[in-house]
C-alpha cells in the first residue's frame, strides 16, 4: 500500500515554477470553451446541419488545441521545471567525521622542524592527502571537527564535498598551542548524535601528538562510545625522534605523562569499538594509511544522488507551437460558406451579414 504514495510523489512531487503568480493566467485557458478561431456563421435552422460525429470531434479537438496552447504558454512563462531531485541509492561508503588536529606542532615538518625548501609540513601533507581521500569517496557523508586548545565543531555531516574540501584546506593555517584530543573526540562522537541511519560510522582522528585525557573526559568518552558505535581510526603523524605509539618503553617510564600518545592508543583500544591506529612518519606512509582506511570503510550506504533541475519551459513552448500550428492549419482549411451567399445578397442590394470580429 505504501507504493502508491511513493508513486504519486514521483509523478507529482518535484514539479515547480519560478513565478507562481503567472499561474493565475491559467484561467485564460478556459477561453477556448467560449470562443473559436473561426468565423461564426448564421444558420437559418440548426436542424439543417446534419449531426456529424467527425465534425464534432474536430470541433472539440480544435477547442482542446486552443486550451492546450494557452495553458502550455502560461506554464512555460511561469518557468515550469522539475526541481532538483534527490534519489536514494545504495553504494559503498560511510558516515565519517574528520577530527583534525589544529595545534601549531602540525605546522612543522616530519623532522620536527620548520619546513625548509621542498619539505612539507605535517599539516600541508595532511591537507593534500585528506583532500585526495575525500575526493575518492564521493558517497560519504562527511563532517569535520577540529581541536587544539579547545574542541571546535567545523561542519555538520554533509553530502557536499566542496565545503569539506574548504575545511580541509584550512588546516595548514597556523594552529594554536595545545592538543585537547579528549574533548575533540567527544565532540566528534557528538557529531553523530542526530544520525539515525544504519550506515557505517567512522571517526578519523588526524593528529601529531596527544595529551593527557582528563579522567572525567575519559568517562564521558566511554559513555559516548557505548552509545554511538563507531569505527575509530587514528592517523598518527609521528615526528622523527618522538616516541611511537607501538613502542613499549622500559618499565618505570611507561606513564601517561611521559608517553601521552601511547596511552591515548591504549585508551582508544579499551573503548570497545573497532579501532585501528596508523603511525605515519612520512607523507608516503600517510598516503598508505589513508588508502588502508579507504579499503576498510566500504560497507553499503544509502546515499543521496542529486538529479539536477530540468527546465521544461522550452518543452511547454514547443507543445504550444504544435497546438497553435494545428489551429492555424484548421484556419487555413476554413471554407467560408457564407461569403458566397453574402456576395449574392450584396448584389441583391441587401445589407451584408455582420461578422463576429
Amino acid at each position, binding site marked *: 500500500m505504501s507504493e502508491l504514495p511513493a508513486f504519486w510523489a514521483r509523478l507529482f512531487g518535484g514539479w515547480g515554477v519560478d513565478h507562481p503568480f503567472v499561474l493565475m*493566467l491559467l484561467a485564460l485557458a478556459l*477561453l477556448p470553451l467560449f470562443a473559436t*478561431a473561426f468565423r461564426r456563421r448564421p444558420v437559418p435552422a440548426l436542424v439543417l446541419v446534419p449531426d456529424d460525429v467527425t465534425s464534432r470531434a474536430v470541433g472539440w479537438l480544435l477547442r482542446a488545441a486552443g486550451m492546450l496552447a494557452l495553458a502550455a504558454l502560461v506554464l512555460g512563462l511561469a518557468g515550469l521545471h522539475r526541481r532538483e531531485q534527490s534519489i536514494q541509492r545504495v553504494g559503498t561508503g560511510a558516515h565519517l567525521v574528520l577530527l583534525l588536529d589544529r595545534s601549531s606542532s602540525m605546522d612543522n615538518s616530519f623532522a620536527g622542524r620548520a619546513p625548509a625548501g621542498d619539505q612539507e609540513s605535517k599539516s600541508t601533507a595532511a591537507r593534500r592527502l585528506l583532500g585526495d581521500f575525500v575526493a575518492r569517496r564521493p558517497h560519504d557523508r562527511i563532517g569535520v571537527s577540529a581541536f587544539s586548545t579547545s574542541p571546535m565543531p567545523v561542519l555538520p555531516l554533509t553530502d557536499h564535498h566542496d565545503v569539506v*574540501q574548504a575545511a580541509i584546506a584550512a588546516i595548514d593555517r597556523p594552529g*594554536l598551542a595545545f592538543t585537547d584530543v579528549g574533548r575533540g573526540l567527544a565532540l566528534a562522537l557528538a557529531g553523530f548524535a542526530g544520525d539515525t541511519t544504519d550506515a557505517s560510522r567512522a571517526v578519523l582522528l588526524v593528529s601529531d601528538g596527544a595529551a593527557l585525557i582528563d579522567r572525567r573526559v575519559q568517562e564521558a568518552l566511554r559513555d559516548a562510545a557505548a552509545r554511538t558505535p563507531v569505527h575509530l581510526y587514528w592517523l598518527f603523524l609521528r615526528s622523527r625522534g618522538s616516541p611511537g605509539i607501538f613502542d613499549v618503553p622500559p618499565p618505570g617510564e611507561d606513564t601517561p605523562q611521559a608517553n601521552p600518545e601511547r596511552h591515548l592508543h591504549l585508551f582508544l583500544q579499551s573503548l570497545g569499538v573497532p579501532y585501528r591506529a596508523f603511525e605515519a612518519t612520512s607523507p608516503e606512509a600517510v598516503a598508505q594509511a589513508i588508502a588502508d582506511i579507504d579499503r576498510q570503510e566500504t560497507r553499503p550506504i544509502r546515499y543521496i544522488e542529486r538529479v539536477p533541475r530540468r527546465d521544461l519551459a522550452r518543452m511547454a513552448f514547443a507543445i504550444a507551437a504544435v497546438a497553435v500550428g494545428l489551429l*492555424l492549419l484548421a484556419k487555413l482549411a476554413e471554407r467560408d460558406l457564407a461569403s458566397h451567399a453574402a456576395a449574392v445578397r450584396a448584389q441583391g442590394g441587401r445589407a451584408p451579414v455582420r461578422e463576429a*470580429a
Partner: protein
Amino acid sequence: MRRRALASHPRLRDARFWLLAVALLALAAALAAPRMELTRSARDLVLVIDVTGSMNVRDYRIDGTPASRLAEAKRAARALLAALPCESRLGLGIFTERRSFLLFEPAEVCENFAAIDGSIEGLDWRMAWEGDSYVARGVHAALAMAADLKADLVFLTDGHEAPPLPGSGLPAFDGEPGKVSGLLVGVGGSEPAPIPKFDEDGREIGFYGEQDVPQENRSGPPPADAPSRAGWNPRNAPWGGDPASGTEHLSAMREEHLRALAAQTGLGFTRLGDPSALATAVEAGTRVRPVSVRVDTAPVPAALALLCLATLFAAGALASRRAIPAH
C-alpha cells in the same frame, strides 16, 4: 485599391488568422531564442565572529526572550548567508584571544548552504580557548588571512578589549590599509551590561565583578595623566597608588574603538541592527566579483504569443455574447 485585393482573399482580411500566424511565429522565435549572458555580482567573504566572553552579554531580544550578542550575531550571519547571491563564496572563522582562527576557506554558498548554515549555528563561546580578547590584533590577523584568501572581511565583534588597551592606544597595523575591503560590524547595546561568568563545566555562575577583570592595562609606559593620581611615584607607583577601578567588568559595544580600528585598517563600520540590514551593509562595503549567469530570452516572444492567443479567444468570447443578426 489595396483593400479590394485583400478583400478578394477573405482569409487574409480576418484578424484571427493574423493573430494565429503571429502567435506561431513568436513561438518559433521563443524556441530559437538564445540564452543571454548577464553578469551578477557575487562576493567572496570571510566571516569572522567574535566568541569571547563579552559576547555572552544578553542585551538583545530574539522573539521576546533575552539573547546573547553571539546569538544575535549568528542570526545576522545566517541571514547574510541566505541573502548572498549564488556563486558567492563564504568562509568562516572565529575570533578569540588575539587570533582569528579559520574554520573553513570560502566555499560556494548555494550548493553548500545547509553545511555552512549548520556550521554558523554550531558556533559557541566554548570554542574560545582563552579569556583574553585583543580585538584589534584579531582584526589585524583576520585582515592578513582575508588578503591571503583574496576575500573581503566581515568581522562581527562588540569591540570589548580585555585586558583594556594600554595608554598608547591601538597596536600598530603593519598591513596596507584598504588592501582588503570589508566591514567591522559592532554587536551589542550601548548601555554597559554585566558579563555572565561560567565555571569550567560551562555552567553559569553569576557575573563578573569589578575585581575579577583587569581594569587597566599596566604594561608599557604609564598614561600621561598618571602624575595627577593619588600616591603616584615615578619609580614605585608609576600608575598611582590605588588599585585600578573602572567599568571593564561591564560591557557595551565600543563604537568609538571600532570606528578608530576601522579607520586604521581601511574597513567600513556598521552597527548590527536588523539582521537583514547586515546584507545591505555588506553589499555596500565589499567588492563585487562579477559572475555571468545565463538568462533565457524565450519568455519575451512567448509572452507575445500568449497575448495574441488571449486576444483572439477573448475577443471571440466577447463577440459570442452578441447574437448574429437574423435575416
